[in-house]
């Protein structure tokens, strides 16, 4: 099976604030970061709410000289990576040869859209020379490498809303097979641009009021932004340096529906959860909590519920399943990273973050969704689901470290 993997550092930027502390507090209190949109220059925009990082000023967290080179999605990735590395206690020398695998669904869209707007709307003929280095989808990964002096395998992974999940699985594979001892992995996205908001709106999946996963009156997803980054490490390496260990990274499942470009599939989701359990050598009865993909769209919530029931059968009734997207929104390529951070905190500290805004269970939604109130109690094993557009699935498992 190769090296056992542990998680030793966490970093997050989200609608719940910058840093793990506000993220954790909000999960415990059941506070949502969904608000009216701030600062969007976009005429005729029908989307009025989102889960934006509140009053975000990059200069409060990053060297001002760097900012001209950093798209918003790179800023988030860098802030979360710095936090995760500091949290891990690793020295610069200990992470110099680490991997850094950063998922993103969108890339540097703020940069790209600014350029396209100047070209196509304003009729300008010349665009900013940093458009490519700032906007390229791998820019966030490159900036993490550049600024933190990380020289191992570094690249981006993109699979829409499963980008983080696939990035983390990739990192785990590298550690498991002895390629690296340390990997920084997760995802980042900054989708609050005019073009993306309008494009999402046209898919008719965005809520006009709030995010109510699994509820009867759910009205769609609420876009979010941010970054969720974790430090994964071989148990051997972590123990040798006396690291504080949050949890064991127990395994992952990956699969593709090969079905439909937007519709989710019960079989695909169930197969991925099953593959994850198999990889982590777990049986359904071992799992107490699932951090659901839980987007609050009509299609996802019923499909995901059916997939969980298909895998867990009689154990499904005693499972706690919550969607923290009800608090931090759907941060797309960052979602799986933020949600794995939530899942790790859950296992480490023994609490289940609630599904907030829950009213009444929707048709076909008949699991325990931990409505509105945090629940305390030991969690030995938890899963984090990501089921992306295009049928790309990733499920991750964490276990109490013993």
């Amino acid at each position: 099976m190769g090296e056992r993997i542990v998680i030793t550092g966490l970093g997050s930027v989200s609608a719940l604030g910058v840093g793990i502390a506000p993220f954790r507090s909000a999960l415990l209190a059941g506070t949502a970061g969904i608000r009216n949109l701030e600062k969007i220059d976009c005429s005729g925009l029908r989307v009025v709410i989102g889960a934006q990082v509140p009053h975000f000023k990059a200069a409060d967290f990053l060297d001002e000289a760097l900012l001209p080179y950093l798209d918003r999605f790179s800023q988030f990735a860098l802030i979360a990576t710095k936090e995760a590395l500091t949290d891990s206690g690793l020295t610069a020398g200990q992470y110099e040869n680490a991997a850094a695998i950063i998922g993103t669904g969108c890339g540097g869209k703020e940069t790209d859209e600014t350029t396209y707007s100047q070209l196509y709307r304003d009729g300008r003929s010349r665009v900013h020379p940093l458009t490519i280095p700032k906007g390229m989808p791998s820019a966030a990964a490159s900036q993490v490498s550049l600024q933190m002096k990380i020289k191992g395998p570094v690249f981006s992974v993109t699979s829409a809303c499963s980008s983080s999940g696939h990035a983390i699985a990739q990192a785990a594979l590298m550690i498991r097979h002895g390629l690296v001892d340390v990997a920084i992995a997760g995802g980042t996205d900054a989708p609050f641009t005019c073009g993306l908001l309008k494009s999402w709106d046209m898919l008719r999946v965005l809520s006009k009021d709030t995010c109510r996963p699994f509820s009867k009156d759910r009205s769609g997803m609420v876009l979010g932004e941010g970054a969720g980054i974790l430090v994964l490490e071989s148990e051997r390496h972590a123990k040798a340096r006396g690291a504080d260990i949050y949890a064991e990274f127990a395994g992952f499942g990956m699969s593709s529906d090969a079905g439909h470009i937007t519709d989710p599939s019960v079989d695909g989701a169930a197969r991925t959860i099953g593959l994850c359990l198999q990889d982590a050598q777990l049986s359904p009865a071992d799992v107490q909590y699932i951090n659901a993909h839980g987007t609050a769209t009509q299609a996802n919530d019923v499909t995901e519920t059916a997939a969980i029931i298909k895998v867990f059968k009689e154990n499904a009734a005693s499972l706690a399943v919550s969607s923290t997207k009800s608090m931090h929104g759907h941060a797309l390529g960052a979602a799986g990273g933020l949600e794995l951070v939530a899942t790790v905190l859950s296992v480490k500290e023994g609490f289940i973050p609630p599904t907030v805004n829950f009213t009444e269970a929707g048709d076909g939604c008949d699991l325990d969704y931990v409505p509105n109130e945090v629940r305390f109690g030991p969690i030995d094993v938890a899963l984090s689901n990501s089921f992306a557009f295009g049928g790309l699935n990733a499920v991750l498992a964490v276990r109490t470290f013993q």
Partner: protein
Amino acid sequence: MSLDIETVVISAIATQKQLDTASIKRESCLQDLGVSSLDAITIVYEVEEAFDVEISNAELEKLETVGDIVDGIGSLLAGK
């Protein structure tokens, strides 16, 4: 002329390199100011925008000092 070329060039360099404008002279060597090739194309972009001129790649490669940029823009404008 509405815009003083030297002021625009120095201001573009100062912004890009986070330097005090007073520390940048006409004779200053771009390399000494820490101007990388990526900085140079960004500075030239700002100047091109300000004066609506086009600096060719060949001309860009010849630039060594602040004065080179100022004079280059000056002759481009004179030829307009």
